[in-house]
């Protein structure tokens, strides 16, 4: 398999990969968020800035839901932060996959700010098909493109620009988990696969006992199970 390289080819691949689902998924998902922000009394600029700066739907939803139920500022910020805690391990696993050192700390912070579950999942899958020195360009083009689609969706949702029948909306909401499930289904690596299986098994239990930090528990326990399990597997086999 020949690798993709050169700026025009890499940019084209990033735009095509973004347009063949992620941009649309984020556009429709963020329309839902924009509509919730409008109902909660935020103004349109706040809704757009929330998508741009938080850039993680579970945290954004925690923010708008807790604001509606009249929680205090600290409680809202803490809940949003905990709902988005996955960015810490995601950034750690992502940065070396994209580039082996070299980037300045500011560049890395900007890359970290643009990271979302979409760009993480798609890039972890597509990076092996892109020449190493072109991976940052691929990521930044892809991430910038879907961020733009998300902000546009937030604003159109805020102004109620597109009204769709309820059953279509259900199908559109469902595109997001479907897309991630398919993208991750072919993840190579025994440790990664075992971690994902463990994560699925643990999340309902963690959610039952510790709903606000369920993903943190899921990640630490599931990731440890996958990491240790794969090592045992290796020594046995």
């Amino acid at each position: 398999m020949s690798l993709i390289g050169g700026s025009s080819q890499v940019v084209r691949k990033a735009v095509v990969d973004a347009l063949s689902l992620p941009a649309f998924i984020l556009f429709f998902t963020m329309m839902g968020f924009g509509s919730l922000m409008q109902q909660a009394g935020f103004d349109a600029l706040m809704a757009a800035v929330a998508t741009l700066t938080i850039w993680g739907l579970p945290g954004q939803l925690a923010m708008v839901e807790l604001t509606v139920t009249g929680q205090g500022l600290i409680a809202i910020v803490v809940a949003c932060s905990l709902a988005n805690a996955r960015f810490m391990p995601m950034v750690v696993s992502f940065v070396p996959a994209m580039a082996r050192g070299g980037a300045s700390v500011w560049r890395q912070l900007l890359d970290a700010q643009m990271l979302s579950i979409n760009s993480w999942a798609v890039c972890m899958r597509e990076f092996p098909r892109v020449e190493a020195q072109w991976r940052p360009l691929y990521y930044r083009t892809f991430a910038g493109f879907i961020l733009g689609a998300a902000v546009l969706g937030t604003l159109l949702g805020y102004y109620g620009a597109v009204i769709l029948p309820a059953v279509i909306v259900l199908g559109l909401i469902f595109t997001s988990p479907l897309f991630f499930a398919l993208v991750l289904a072919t993840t190579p690596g025994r440790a990664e696969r075992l971690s994902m299986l463990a994560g699925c098994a643990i999340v309902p239990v963690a959610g039952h006992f510790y709903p606000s930090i369920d993903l943190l528990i899921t990640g630490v326990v599931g990731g440890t199970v996958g990491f240790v399990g794969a090592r045992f597997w290796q020594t046995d086999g």
Partner: protein
Amino acid sequence: MDRLWWIVLGCGAATFLWRGLGVVVVRRIDPQGAVFRWITCVSYAMVAGLIFRMIVLPESDLASVPLAQRIAAVALAFAAYFLLGRRLVAGVLAGSLTLSALAYWFT
């Protein structure tokens, strides 16, 4: 400043803390080492858990669709993806349309 602005910017800053912490950690660990591989496993477990939760235990309007219908839609998405040459668009379209059709017929 408006209280709602404090909420939005506070949430943005609080999320950025995790991203920034990720950058701090990644500059200090060996990308070939065991700690890095463990944190990668943690990411995969977290992301898989989040997706599993979105499908099986949704907090959105999807909760109004029975679990069996959601699972049927996922099964069709996987079938379409693998049968039609691993095309993500085919899988997602099949699953999404199945869910909409089931929701339409059973309500």
